[in-house]
């Protein structure tokens, strides 16, 4: 190679590297700067460093902000009555017990009330399910003497503490001893008449409120449409709107399509409606959606989630779909029955989802939507993962759909109280939720084995028998 050819090659290499670096620094794709793969809970927002990290004075990425964890997760921790709130480790003697289990800083971080003491990100090699970065023996830091204090636990290996159906770290709402004692003799299935989920009641509450205000709800027809005259619509759009609860509740075109222009502050018509319009009336549903796997990117200020970005298996036909309210509810139909199952299965293509149609739950769902069974008796995807839950909303006992499926997903025992118990006994539910094969098969048969051997109920029985033998009462 000649002297000049060498220089030219060098110049090309330098220019190429410079260009690459420039694009990497300023371009949309910042993957190059990820220090390691993020967890399943955070990968959707991993390229927005400031979603979790502060910014240093010189503009570089700073430490993880505890407030970022709190903003997204504290609400659920408060709701479930967190078994291990970080303040429980407030005493120095407690924090010190964790020292032998430190990777490098845990006890100090716990003492300072940082979630990342146990949930380090970007470190897949040490990260276990639920984004836990502490070793499996972590429970032993404080509970190594459990065998001495509880005869029933003598000899149990530390690897069994967090076995499905035994203990969770944060949410033991369905696993506490007294709760299990109360439900240890539950029947597998509730009587049919009792196995019903509550039904949404926002329509009733809204009508009653409007009547109280002296402005009773009047159902609308196409003659009442208030869209600007220069807008034209396909007749099917109008027919869809006319058939919905929206039209029946007096919700007109401009109620959704008129939005405030961010720049001018003027109210303008927009063809495309976003979640802000929906949340004017469906505040709690929108709040749940923004905290969910479907809406967390919007909540962080990013483009909506798309199925092809997911780590779960998604159907190729769904790629490109933007996860906003309309993705599941349709633009004008707002068919909640469609949203409860079909919308899910239009995208989700994992084994559990695919097998839904083979399950008894699906049979019950078909019976409900075809009118063979009463409303609330069917089991759709949403029945379990986006359930209708009675809640106190501004003083009203309102049943609405919880749109944050994280609250009804993993660890799956968190679904026992809020969902499974509507129809099943606790032992049956815990056994089913502990059986990985049964989960993949989408519960196409009853569980055939206990969640663990000995099961939590065996241990309680042993304990009660021992107490009785000693002439002690079983108060708790």
């Amino acid at each position, binding site marked *: 190679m000649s002297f000049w050819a060498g220089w030219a090659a060098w110049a090309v290499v330098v220019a190429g590297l410079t260009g690459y670096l420039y694009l990497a620094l300023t371009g949309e794709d910042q993957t190059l700067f990820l220090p390691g793969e993020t967890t399943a809970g955070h990968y959707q927002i991993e390229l927005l460093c400031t979603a979790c990290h502060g910014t240093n004075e010189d503009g570089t990425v700073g430490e993880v902000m505890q407030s970022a964890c709190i903003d997204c997760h504290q609400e659920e921790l408060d709701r479930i*009555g967190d078994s291990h*709130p970080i*303040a*429980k480790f*407030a*005493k*120095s*003697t*407690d*924090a*010190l*017990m964790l*020292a032998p289990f430190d990777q490098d800083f845990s*006890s100090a971080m716990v*003492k*300072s*009330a940082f979630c990342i003491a146990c949930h380090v990100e970007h470190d897949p090699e040490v990260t276990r399910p639920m984004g836990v970065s502490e070793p499996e023996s972590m429970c032993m830091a*404080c509970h190594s*003497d459990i065998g001495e*204090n509880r005869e029933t636990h003598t000899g149990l290996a530390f690897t069994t503490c967090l076995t499905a159906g035994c203990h969770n770290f944060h949410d033991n*709402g369905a696993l*506490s001893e*007294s*709760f299990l004692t109360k439900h240890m003799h539950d029947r597998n299935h509730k009587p049919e008449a009792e196995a019903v989920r509550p039904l949404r009641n926002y329509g009733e509450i809204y009508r009653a409120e409007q009547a109280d205000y002296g402005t009773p709800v009047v159902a609308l027809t196409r003659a009442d449409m208030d869209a600007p005259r220069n807008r034209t619509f396909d007749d099917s759009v109008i027919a869809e709107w006319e058939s919905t609860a929206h039209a029946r509740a007096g919700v007109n075109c401009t109620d959704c399509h008129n939005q405030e222009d961010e720049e001018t502050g003027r109210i303008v018509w927009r063809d495309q409606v976003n979640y802000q319009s929906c949340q004017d009336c469906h505040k709690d549903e929108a709040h749940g959606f923004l905290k969910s796997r479907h809406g967390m990117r919007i909540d962080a200020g990013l483009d909506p989630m798309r199925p092809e970005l997911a780590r779960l298996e998604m159907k190729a036909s769904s790629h490109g779909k933007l996860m906003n309210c309309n993705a599941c509810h349709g633009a004008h139909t707002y068919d909640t029955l469609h949203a409860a199952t079909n919308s899910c299965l239009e995208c989700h293509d994992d084994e559990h989802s695919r097998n839904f149609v083979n399950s008894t739950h699906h049979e019950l769902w078909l019976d409900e939507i075809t009118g063979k069974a009463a409303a609330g008796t069917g089991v759709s995807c949403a029945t379990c993962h986006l359930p209708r839950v009675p809640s106190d909303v501004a003083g009203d006992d309102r049943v609405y759909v919880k749109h944050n499926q994280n609250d009804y997903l993993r660890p799956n025992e968190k679904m026992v*109280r809020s969902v499974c118990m509507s129809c099943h006994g606790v032992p049956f539910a815990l056994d089913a939720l502990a059986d990985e094969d049964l989960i993949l098969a989408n519960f196409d048969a009853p569980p055939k084995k206990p969640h663990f051997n000995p099961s939590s109920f065996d241990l309680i029985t042993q*304990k009660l028998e021992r*107490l009785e033998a000693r002439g*002690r*009462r*079983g*108060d*708790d």
Partner: protein
Amino acid sequence: MRLTSKRFQALGVAAVLGTATTLGLGGCGGGESPSADAAGATGSGLEPQAVADMLHAVMAADRKVYVANVVNRLTKVQDVQIRDPETGEMKKLKGSEEWDQTFGTLPLPAQQFRYGSEEAFKKNNNFEYGLISSWSINKKHMPKSDFEKEKIKAMEETGKPQYGTEEVGGETFFVAMYPDRATAKACWDCHNKHKDSPKTDFKQDDVMGGIVIRIPV
């Protein structure tokens, strides 16, 4: 980052006075009242022991009020009965460890105290307090360090508050331990009957455990 000792003292006094004023409470609950001159104000501020004594006065007062005027009054004196919405049956109102998941139950006094400690920690993690006992139902509340084990024995024997300094994790703390006595039937009844209680013969005025306050010095 920890506050300096003087800043902490000022904060401690403000917190105590603020809380006491808000609640309109004075005096001490189910524990011993340390003498006024046990540790007094100095020209430059309060000694840790004085701060601890004041903190304890508020804690013990709140604890006594909750035990006597809420739990004991409703569950023992009035024996309140409530209707279970699931079964329609009348049942006794009682304290329960799972009060937040169980209809018609009250937080146990020990939980009420711990929740207060956790809330205080959220506001200010420069001091620590909690309950410990040689006969705790939750074994996590047994004395842990050698210092706590030694002091709790002395406290159980004498019925008097214990003070000292202890080093934990390279940090030195002033530690005060105050006897926590059985002040109401609800206290000893529950502990004597609980299936996980290691002691079943508590009676009125027994020292059931201690309130421990740690202040970094």
